[in-house]
């Protein structure tokens, strides 16, 4: 009985890992397609999208099975719940990669005068955040995720800068509206990817440490802090 | 469910069936032989009249009464004493303590003593020692009262004989009362005494009655222990007090068979007496069994 649980949990974990790998690849391909003339990369993003969606369905199924049939508790339960949420975040990231890919196509046809350098920094940051969060999950290492949370603010700032910048550009040069809008779209989607990567990091921290660190506040699930202990201290 | 005897089963079935049949038929044969020999003698008069004419005529009524009284006295002594002992051994001592082992040894030894030895012991201890001393206390002017064979001493001697059986049987029935029943009673806040009285004793009651049945079976049949302690050959009046001697069917039979002046004439009476003894033992057993069944049934209402 116990072996099956282990196998199922491993299966769930590896499904997440494979999905994350596809998602990372999609994000990478979409960003490459943005800056270089590589239409085949852009095309691959759309193909990966199908695979990512299939993963999402498969992982949801695995989670339902585990919850209904195995009554998991403690660390097992936390891993499964984390996997469920990470599944969702990864699928969204995939969607955002698709959006970036579409913008890449559009920008190929109608290029902008220049690429804001913030975008490159945002792209690097988003990809790093995603990779670190997923690594954190793979190795059950919440320490990797600490950085991710901090980077999110940086990316948010960058997004605001880019949008402001592009807004100015549009006002000065109305002809360049379309490309500017596309660039804004890219920036927004990168910011969303960073957000989702942050969510993944928060889930990993919950999974590993039973700490809920959402929305800026922290809440330790292990008992209420000032509770009198149920067990008396052991005499040494 | 009746299982059909499968091919390979038949030797076992045959063997056990034959053994059972042999046992039952032995009883039947004895009963029939006795019946045949005593048929002419058995009559209402036989049952309710006293012996006449040197035991060659009349009935055995006093012996019947004596036998019943003997069994009664014996049971009244053996069953409570044996039950109390069993309770002590089972409920109040540790399971394998030295004391318990000693007790068990003594009980086993007691069970192995031949009946005649009990008879002699009864004579020496109950009749002479205890009876004699009671007489001394009571004053010898009235002549020996306790210091001779009587119903009481015979009954107590028999009780001693059957005591091991009673103890062992009651102890077994106490073991059959599940440990949880006692624990539950304690857990409800009952003292040990209350638990024994209200929980253990009622559940052990069928076992106690079984012990009584077994004691009765032995008591009605033994002759050697009562020969010197209370039974007499010719006491036509029914015993009116514990100090009286009494006639007893088994003893009567023995004396008639061995010492009668005219064995041929009493042959019919002997057969009839033996058959009567069989019937009486059976009836005593049966009544105890019925009583036990009634108690069991009442529980399941």
């Amino acid at each position, binding site marked *: *009985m*116990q072996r099956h*649980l282990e196998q199922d949990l491993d299966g769930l974990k590896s499904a997440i890992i494979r999905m994350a790998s596809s998602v990372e690849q999609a994000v990478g391909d979409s960003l490459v397609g943005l800056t270089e003339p590589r239409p085949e990369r852009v095309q691959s993003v759309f193909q990966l999208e199908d695979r990512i969606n299939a993963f999402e369905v498969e992982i949801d199924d695995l989670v339902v099975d585990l919850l209904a049939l195995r*009554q*998991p*508790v*403690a*660390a*097992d*339960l*936390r891993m499964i719940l984390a996997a469920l949420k990470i599944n969702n975040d990864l699928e969204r990231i995939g969607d955002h990669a698709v959006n970036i890919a579409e913008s890449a196509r559009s920008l190929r046809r109608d290029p902008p005068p220049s690429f804001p350098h913030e975008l490159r920094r945002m792209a690097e940051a988003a990809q790093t955040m995603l990779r670190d969060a997923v690594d954190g999950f793979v190795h059950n290492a919440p320490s990797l995720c600490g950085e991710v949370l901090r980077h999110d603010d940086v990316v948010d700032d960058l997004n605001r800068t880019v949008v402001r910048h592009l807004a100015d550009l549009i006002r000065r040069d109305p002809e360049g509206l379309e490309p500017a809008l596309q660039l804004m779209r890219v920036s927004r989607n990168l910011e969303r990817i960073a957000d989702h990567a942050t969510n993944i990091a928060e889930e990993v921290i919950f999974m590993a440490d*039973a700490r809920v660190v959402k929305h800026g506040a922290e809440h330790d*699930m*292990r*008992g*209420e802090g000032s*509770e*009198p*202990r*149920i*067990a*008396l*201290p*052991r*005499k040494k | 469910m009746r299982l059909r005897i499968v091919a390979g089963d038949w030797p076992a079935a045959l063997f056990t069936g034959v053994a059972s049949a042999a046992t039952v038929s032995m009883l039947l044969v004895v009963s029939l032989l006795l019946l045949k020999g005593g048929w002419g003698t058995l009559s209402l008069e036989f049952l309710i009249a006293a012996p006449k004419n040197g035991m060659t005529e009349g009935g055995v009524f006093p012996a019947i009464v004596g036998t019943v009284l003997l069994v009664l006295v014996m049971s009244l002594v053996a069953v409570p004493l044996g039950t109390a002992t069993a309770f002590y051994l089972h409920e109040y001592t*540790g*399971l394998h303590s030295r004391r318990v082992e000693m007790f068990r040894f003594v009980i086993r030894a007691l069970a192995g003593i031949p009946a005649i030895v009990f008879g002699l012991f009864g004579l020496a201890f109950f009749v002479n020692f205890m009876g004699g001393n009671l007489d001394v206390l009571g004053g010898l002017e009235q002549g020996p009262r306790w210091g001779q064979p009587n119903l009481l001493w015979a009954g107590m001697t028999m009780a001693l004989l059957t005591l091991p059986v009673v103890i062992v049987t009651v102890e077994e029935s106490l073991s059959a009362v*599940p440990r*949880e*029943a006692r*624990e*539950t*009673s*304690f*857990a*409800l*806040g*009952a*003292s040990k005494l*209350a638990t024994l009285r*209200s*929980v253990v004793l*009622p*559940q052990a009651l069928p076992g106690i009655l079984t012990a009584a049945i077994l004691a009765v079976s032995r008591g009605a049949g033994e002759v050697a222990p009562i020969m010197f302690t209370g039974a007499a050959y010719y006491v036509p009046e029914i015993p009116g007090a514990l100090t009286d001697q009494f006639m007893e069917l088994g003893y009567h039979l023995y004396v008639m068979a061995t010492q009668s002046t005219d064995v041929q004439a009493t042959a019919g009476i002997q057969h009839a007496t033996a058959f009567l003894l069989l019937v009486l033992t059976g009836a005593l057993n049966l009544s105890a069994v019925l009583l036990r069944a009634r108690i069991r049934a009442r*529980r*399941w*209402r």
Partner: protein
Amino acid sequence: MTPPGRVHPKIITEDLSVSFGETEALRGVSLRIPGNRVTVLIGPSGCGKTTLLRSLNRLNELTPGAHRTGRILIDGVEIHGPEVDPTELRRRVGMIFQKSNPFPQSIYENVAYGPRLNGVRSRAQLDEVIESSLRVVGLWDEVRGHLRSSALALSGGQQQRLCIARALAVGPEVLLMDEPATALDPAATGRIEDLIYELKSSVTIVMVTHNLQQAARVSDVTAFLYRGRLVEADLTRTMFTSPRMPETEGYITGRFG
């Protein structure tokens, strides 16, 4: 509901150790059991949870060779103190056993046993106690018509509820339950669990079970024992989502025991 850890402890064990002859069953167990809550004792076979339970009503003393060190306090009073009468203690601390064991008597007699021990003689009073006890366990409507019939004719689940009624009739403050639903089917188990939930507002419940889902469903506080030691005790919610000790984690996820 006030969190169980904040409730005043009804029972406290301090460094409790129990051994039977050479075998150590409990070692240095220090535990606080909150009042009017359900505390469950879990652990693999032989971990000492039943021994701990039976220490709380001094039932272990009936086993020859039992030896105890350490203290147990109920409402601050040491239960092994010289002024404490064990039979009186057992009226305040009742016990339900694993296999239901009604006395082979009528339903009425079973429930009346305890009150009669306490000196309740009047028929009216007995009737009242019996009715209310049977109502609490949800048996009244089922048996009111045949209180004089044998308790052994009831189903397993009914018998167990009868045993609970029997224990409640004495008016205990604490109820110790040793795997009360182990021998029952799921429907009967569910009724017992519902009953436990209702009872805890009036009685402190300490329960042993080897069914972890039941422990999670029913209890407020969970204590995990292993090889005679108390490994960890905490709110049930915490024990089942993020226990501190790896042994606890291993046991409740089913990786051993």
